[in-house]
């Protein structure tokens, strides 16, 4: 029997087996963010341990830092979390891409952008969206703070090998349908717990046809169906995208890496514990109506009747509609909105911003709507400014901020007001996620931009005319 892509990377990185039956898997790259690094540094120090491989570790502040500059302030303001990350990184000899570093950004955006994440590489990050970089063939492990400390101390992760799922997404996407729509539809189909216990390989013609930014958005939402890691087999598009990045191998080392990367595909007879195939050719843009990412409908669809669900799904839908202040059966289109957030590790990349700017092109944000764009990295921000994207968006009335997680998690204080309805390009629509009582609808950047201009939910395919 053949091996899957995940089997192959696992086998290369398996150091051995621990006495308790867990595999020890070597971590090639360890990326930290500010919300959890300080805790782990303090705990290491308390226990008299050091960092085994500070040279393979990178600190990136993103969760707690300000995205808006204070009037009169020359630079960006940090936070006590960023301070702890800074002092710990200095103490243990870890390079930090600090708030004034032009390479700073959201950790899952920066890792592939700088070539920290690469095909065939294992990566750990103390964040559930670590699997984002699976899009370029990195085997990434999302972990908690204790596991973060474990990787710092030992450079391996102790883990039972998960079951394998092959998730095939087939078909040609219609115009105006994006990777984000595919991801939301997928979660609606398989549910928020389908990926629990699995490592997932995305395959199929729809995935192959996506550009790397699209694949990154797709892999990003793995956590939203319960998966801890996901991957896309690297191909020529991946190699081209990775080539020349700051930390990517150069010269002969690059050639050697590519020849290994070309072997990183699942064999035809590889075994999977579960296979799911979803046809995406008839898909419309998607939007969530509820308070978990599986509660999703087509943008031209209606809010469902909870009576059509069974058992606990019914009470969950009742509860969601009450929180979201929605009536069963009403169309999603036409709902007035208060706020639009374009950003996060799901959708804040240059291609997202280009698409939004092209759509906005000379039109204005609806009066009364607060629309905010937070680029995924400082490099993306500068690129967008150089391309004139920032100007288009600012003239339309969007706020143009510094990069960070911002209103996705709201840990830095970027939140909406109670009762506000927010169209968000992020990955979580949980109750109170974007602020107490805030009603979040997840969607693609195009759908979010269209809502910002219209002041209500609209199908961007119709609104573009």
């Amino acid at each position: 029997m053949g091996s899957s892509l995940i089997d192959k990377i696992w086998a290369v990185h398996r150091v051995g087996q621990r006495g308790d039956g867990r595999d020890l898997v070597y971590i090639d790259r360890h990326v930290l963010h500010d919300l959890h690094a300080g805790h782990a540094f303090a705990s290491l120090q308390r226990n008299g341990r050091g960092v085994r491989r500070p040279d393979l570790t990178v600190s990136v502040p993103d969760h707690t830092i300000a995205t808006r500059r204070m009037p009169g302030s020359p630079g960006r303001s940090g936070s006590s979390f960023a301070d702890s990350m800074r002092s710990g990184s200095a103490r243990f000899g870890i390079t930090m891409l600090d708030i004034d570093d032009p390479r700073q950004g959201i950790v899952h955006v920066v890792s592939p952008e700088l070539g920290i994440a690469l095909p065939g590489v294992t990566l750990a990050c103390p964040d559930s969206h670590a699997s984002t970089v699976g899009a370029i063939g990195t085997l990434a492990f999302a972990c908690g703070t204790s596991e973060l400390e474990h990787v710092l101390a030992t450079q391996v992760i102790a883990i039972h090998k998960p079951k394998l799922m092959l998730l095939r997404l087939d078909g040609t996407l219609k115009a105006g349908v994006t990777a984000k729509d595919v991801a939301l539809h997928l979660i609606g189909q398989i549910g928020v717990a389908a990926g629990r216990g699995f490592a997932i390989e995305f395959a199929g013609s729809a995935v192959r046809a996506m550009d790397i930014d699209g694949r990154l958005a797709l892999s990003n939402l793995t956590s939203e169906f319960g998966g801890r890691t996901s991957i896309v087999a690297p191909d020529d598009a991946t190699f081209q995208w990775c080539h020349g990045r700051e930390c990517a191998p150069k010269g002969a080392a690059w050639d050697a890496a590519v020849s290994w990367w070309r072997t990183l595909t699942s064999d035809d007879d590889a075994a999977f514990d579960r296979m799911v195939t979803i046809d995406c050719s008839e898909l419309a843009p998607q939007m969530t109506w509820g308070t978990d990412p599986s509660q999703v409908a087509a943008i031209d669809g209606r809010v469902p009747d909870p009576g059509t669900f069974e058992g606990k799904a019914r009470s969950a839908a009742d509860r969601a509609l009450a929180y979201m202040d929605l009536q069963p059966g009403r169309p999603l289109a036409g709902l007035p909105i208060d706020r639009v957030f374009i950003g996060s590790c799901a959708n804040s990349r240059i291609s997202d911003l280009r698409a939004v700017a092209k759509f906005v092109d000379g039109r204005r944000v609806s009066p009364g709507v607060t629309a905010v764009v937070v680029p995924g990295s400082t490099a993306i921000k500068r690129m967008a400014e150089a391309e004139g994207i920032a100007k288009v968006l600012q003239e339309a009335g969007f706020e143009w901020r510094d990069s960070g997680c911002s209103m996705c998690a709201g840990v830095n204080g970027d939140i909406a007001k109670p009762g506000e309805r927010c169209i968000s390009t992020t990955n979580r629509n949980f109750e109170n996620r974007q602020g107490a009582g805030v009603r979040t609808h997840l969607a693609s950047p195009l759908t979010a931009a269209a809502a910002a201009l219209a002041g209500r939910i609209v199908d961007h395919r119709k609104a573009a005319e």
Partner: protein
Amino acid sequence: MEPFTTLEGVAASLPQDDVDTDQILPTPWLRDPKADLAKGLFGYLRRVPADKTESDFVLEQPAFRQARILVCGSNFGCGSSREHAVWAVKAFGIRCLIAASFADIFRENCLRNGVLAIRLPAEEIEGLHRAVQSVKGGAPFVVNLEEKRIRCPDGRAIAFDISDHEREALMLGLDDIGLTERHVSDIEQWENTSRRSLPFLQDFRIAPFNTSNKPSQ
């Protein structure tokens, strides 16, 4: 890590499925390094936001304020990997969670903090919810990890499964990093082998800011 052997105490029932870690420990308690995590546990559910009315959330009811055991639905702890969610459970005084299933990262976080996360088949969970709800906090449940048994106040016992290794780690309060440190020579050997076979994996450098942040090459 504090060893877990036997736990006797009030059990509370929270049958909702897919309770995410944003509900278990909401952001306001996450973003304050000095926050009282015991107060933050289910913070929004216990204190209805933007409204001063009293919450009827189970852990706010006087009979359950001393709960040590929480019986949950399925996929408990999904969403954000924040370990603070487990710290908050523990800070409140709950050392044992019983659910039809737990999200992967959340369960790992429980194990590493000495919180026993028991998985039971859906039918048994339903029965346990009924038992917990009928007792109304008036009599204790006992969780015996060595015997892998939950004893209800009416004397009924429910057996549960947990791997011998996880049980031992919890009962002895084993240091997880210490277990891996016994394999340090394997790790060194892997690094040496990998330097020859796939050099770019070990050959990683990222320049600090100021010395070289110009694009390389």
